[in-house]
């Protein structure tokens, strides 16, 4: 866990005031209220810095991008759990699922 100043030092030109503003807006949710930031927070700040300073996404648009990213990662996490659970099933169960999925894709193709 690291504090605000150490975190900002990692990501010039990030200022402590900007970081606090991001925390206020909910972009970053420190692991500890102190505030102290864990590895996931650091990685997320790095991502927001990339989006803002490198890719030049304005602050107004950041919540849109972050919300979409959070949704993508939510889905991927859930999908990962589902696939891990399916992978533990016996072959017959997997085969049945495969059949059912192929059927859905078939009917989707027909609708298109």
């Amino acid at each position, binding site marked *: 866990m690291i504090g605000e100043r150490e975190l900002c030092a990692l990501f010039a030109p990030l200022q402590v005031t900007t970081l606090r503003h991001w925390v206020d807006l909910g972009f970053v949710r420190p692991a500890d209220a102190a505030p102290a930031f864990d590895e996931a927070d650091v990685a997320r700040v790095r991502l927001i810095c990339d989006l803002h300073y490198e*890719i030049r996404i304005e602050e107004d648009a950041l919540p849109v991008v972050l919300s979409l990213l959070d949704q993508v990662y939510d889905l991927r996490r859930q999908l990962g759990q589902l696939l891990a659970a399916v992978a533990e099933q016996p072959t017959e169960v997997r085969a049945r699922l495969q059949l059912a999925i192929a059927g859905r894709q078939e009917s989707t193709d027909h609708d298109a």
Partner: protein
Amino acid sequence: MADPYQELGVSRDASADAIRKAYRRLAKKHHPDLNPGDKAAEAKFKEIQGAYDILGEEAKRKRFDAGEIDATGAETGPSQAERDYYRRHAEQGGRDFRYQRAGAGGPDTGGFGEADLSGVFEDLFGERAARGQARGPRRGGDVSYTLTVDFADAVKGATKRVAMADGKTLDLNIPAGLQDGQVLRLRSQGRPGSEGAPAGDALVEIQVAPHPQVRRDGQDLRSALPVTLGEALGGGTVTAETLWGPVKLKIPKGANSGTVLRLRGKGVPAPKGSDGPAGDHFVELQVVLPEEPDETLVKAVTDWEAAHPYRPEGSQGVRQ
């Protein structure tokens, strides 16, 4: 490492502004956290960053142009330390992961909608499922499909052109009388075998789409046939639709709702190789009153009922 100018797709005399724009465009496209499923994005992004580290700084760019540093020269700086991308945390986070979108997560995650997740499923059912099998020549795996066919096609038989997973199309022969849920096996249309072994089969599970009027009952078909009050009372000839075309049908005098009439041989054909007869099509009559009975009809019927009272069975309601 490739030439940084090539990496960013700019000419050697590009302005600092053009280089910055090219870098941002590529970073937007290849940022690993914006491409969570793409394993190659990380390496690509690193190359773009490496190129920009050189060309984005006036002094370094001059040294590179003068041949003082090579394209990898800048890669020893602290900015090239192994990066910890956000996606690593976001994908592995548990149920209490802090950056879940409000409202998402939890047990209410049923239904993936129509999203195209086929790549993921191929991975699961192809690669992972095949793992652990012995090496050496082995027969290709079977591939499963589901095909929905029209009710009439399943009864009468048809040829369907289907697209296989590998892009081939195939004319699939649907035998007459096919039942919902039956599986057709197409020899050698599955995954190719390894080291000369035969290919697997394609297994096509048939789903028969329901018919709006006709339902199947073994080898027979059943449907309802609406008739007028006059046809029911006085008898007459009406036309009934069957899967084999319209058929003239004689309604006996005094027919009623619920009367069942048989159209011989208009059901499901006998299975191939059997000498048995084809099934029949049964129609159940439904007496339908005119939409707006006029006064004459109402008066005639009420007068008649006053003189001939009758009580249909079951009109007292169903007893528990």
